[in-house]
């Protein structure tokens, strides 16, 4: 198994930082100009990687905040094409790796190979597709491999060790460890149980592991140091922008790590 660029990047960054930070935006929410400025703020504040979510009309794995952002973005006319263009822009302007996050239909409708090619040509480095289990994803896997992109797969507290190993075998880049049951945007308790779970994830896979769902402040991130390689902040940064404005975003992100 060849290391993808994402894995290499993560391993390099980890030499400099105790834990990396990956954040998330919904493309075109509230508009593309703001999306760009959010990326800019985040990168300035030291984020290591970013997920760019292509909005979808049926986002079954997302909680209220991201769901709402999906919807608003679509209502304002966001297309997949817009998102690809946007990705082109941010991958050119900023140095960190960007991954697409979306639902499988977006890839499927475009044609998986076409879509992966487009991703590659836009400088994206991987994708997270929460409704595409590895069993259904062989075509996607081979296309991604071909382009050297990282198909990021998911572990959950419900995933058996055996299945983790099966998934590990197919995963590239890193593994997205979901902290708990449920959708994005709800509270997670950062506890011993979570630690045990992360140990198991670590044992199952040699790739870096990222922990997401419910990470929202410095203490959560601190908890994860040494247990995971990447802390994923999704909903919370959208909330910060919605509630306190764009200005608050930089300080929020910067304040997540010492």
């Amino acid at each position, binding site marked *: 198994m060849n290391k993808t660029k994402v894995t290499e990047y993560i391993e390099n960054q980890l030499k400099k930082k105790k834990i990396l930070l990956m954040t998330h935006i919904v493309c075109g929410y509230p508009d593309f100009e703001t999306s760009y400025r959010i990326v800019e703020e985040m990168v300035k504040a030291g984020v290591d990687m970013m997920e760019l979510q292509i909005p*979808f009309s049926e*986002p079954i*794995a997302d909680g209220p905040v991201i769901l709402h952002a999906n919807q608003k973005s679509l209502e304002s006319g966001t297309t997949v094409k817009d998102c690809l263009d946007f990705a082109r822009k941010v991958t050119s302007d900023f140095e960190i790796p960007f991954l697409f996050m979306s*639902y*499988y*239909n977006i890839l499927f*409708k475009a044609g998986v190979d076409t879509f992966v090619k487009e991703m590659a040509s836009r400088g994206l480095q991987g994708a997270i597709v929460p409704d595409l289990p590895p*069993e259904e994803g062989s075509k996607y896997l081979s296309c991604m491999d071909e382009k050297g992109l990282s198909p990021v797969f998911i572990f959950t507290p*419900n*995933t058996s060790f055996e299945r983790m190993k099966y998934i590990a075998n197919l995963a590239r880049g890193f593994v997205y460890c979901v902290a708990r049951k449920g959708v994005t945007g709800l509270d997670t308790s950062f506890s011993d149980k979570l630690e045990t779970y992360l140990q198991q994830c670590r044992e199952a896979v040699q790739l870096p592991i990222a922990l997401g769902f419910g990470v929202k402040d410095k203490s959560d991130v601190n908890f994860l140091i040494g247990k995971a390689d990447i802390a994923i902040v999704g909903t919370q940064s959208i909330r910060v922008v919605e509630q306190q404005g764009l200005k608050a975003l930089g300080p929020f992100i910067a304040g997540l790590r010492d």
Partner: protein
Amino acid sequence: MKNNENNENNQWGEPISSGTQVVGPYFGAYGGAFIPEILYSTIEELKEEFHKAKNDPAFWEEYKALMSNYSCRPTPLTYAERLTEHFKGAKIFIKREDLNHTGAHKANNVMGQGLLVKRMGKTRVIAETGAGQHGVATATMAARFGFDCTIYMGEVDVKRQRPNVFWMERLGATVVAVKEGTRILKDAINEAMRDWVSNMDSTHYVLGTACGPHPFPEMVSYFQSIIGIEARKQILQQHGALPARVYACVGGGSNAMGIFSGFFDDPVELVGVEAGGYGLSTGQHASRLSSNDSSIGVAQGYKTYFLQNHEGQMKETHSVSAGLDYVGVSPILANFKETGRVRFEAATDKEVIEALTLSIKKEGLIPALESAHAFVQAFKEAPELSADKAIIINQSGRGDKDIFTVADAYADPAWREFIIAKAEEYHE
């Protein structure tokens, strides 16, 4: 799929139990299980429990006993003498799923899943609902089995389907008005999925139709196959021969799969009728398999034909009948479209009201607006067939639940006055 004719105790035959056409996860190119990883083990458990049940003849007997003691299975096959005379063609028979407890074929599915929930030892059920029929059926099943119950329903539907919400609440269910998306059925499905990924340990998601991730299309069809098994026996008894054609409306596809199941191996033409809304040419419809407006996609856990735009975003659909107003369709039917085993047609809102009017007047039957779609197509074709032929229409539900919609469709002034007077009474 063959009835076990030798089993003496088995009065109404056995369910579809094999046959590549209706065993998942894939049906041709359609189906699958496109689910968040967190649900993997839950779905595995469900598949296992379902397959154990399916292979256990005692389970089907238990299911049949429940349906005959609590609902009224076997439901009759009614010979529609006056409609037959009217159309002067094939003999018209009507399978009476409207007589089920709670008023539609939905009962077959929910009660079956209820038995599985008991087997799995879960204590809570959730469901999506559009018109509210499946919500009422699920809440009823939950009351009967003593499960907790939450029903997800788009906010728009909650507002317009208040009678069903009222009964769900009386039945002890919590009805959650989904305020996201287009606030209708598909959004309720999404929201139910969100609940399920949070509470799968205690909770079973009672999907209402032959859609969603494997094993739902197969499982829902399995429970609904009781319709077709009965209908086949009944038509042989009453008509002495197989029907030439069988008609069913197609929303998600469960009632169609149910009745078609009895006839897959027979030389019987199967016709699925979708919601033509304002007409296929207007784009305002919910015809996934009979129009050119749909394309293959993956959403809500499965691969099938969806009404979606070229980038994969789901479109808004329209139908006078809430239960057919859905973007996707059973992957099993999508496959049958491809293999040609089932023919698909569309009926417009206007045609539906006409067919409803006629079947009420001629037979005293009030089909649900959903079911009336099947009547439309059958009425169009009956005159083409000779009098020695028979056709069966599946009356999937009863229409008195639709009074608010039907009264509006007829623009009945006395109904309006009644509602206005009632509102004034409430204002006082």
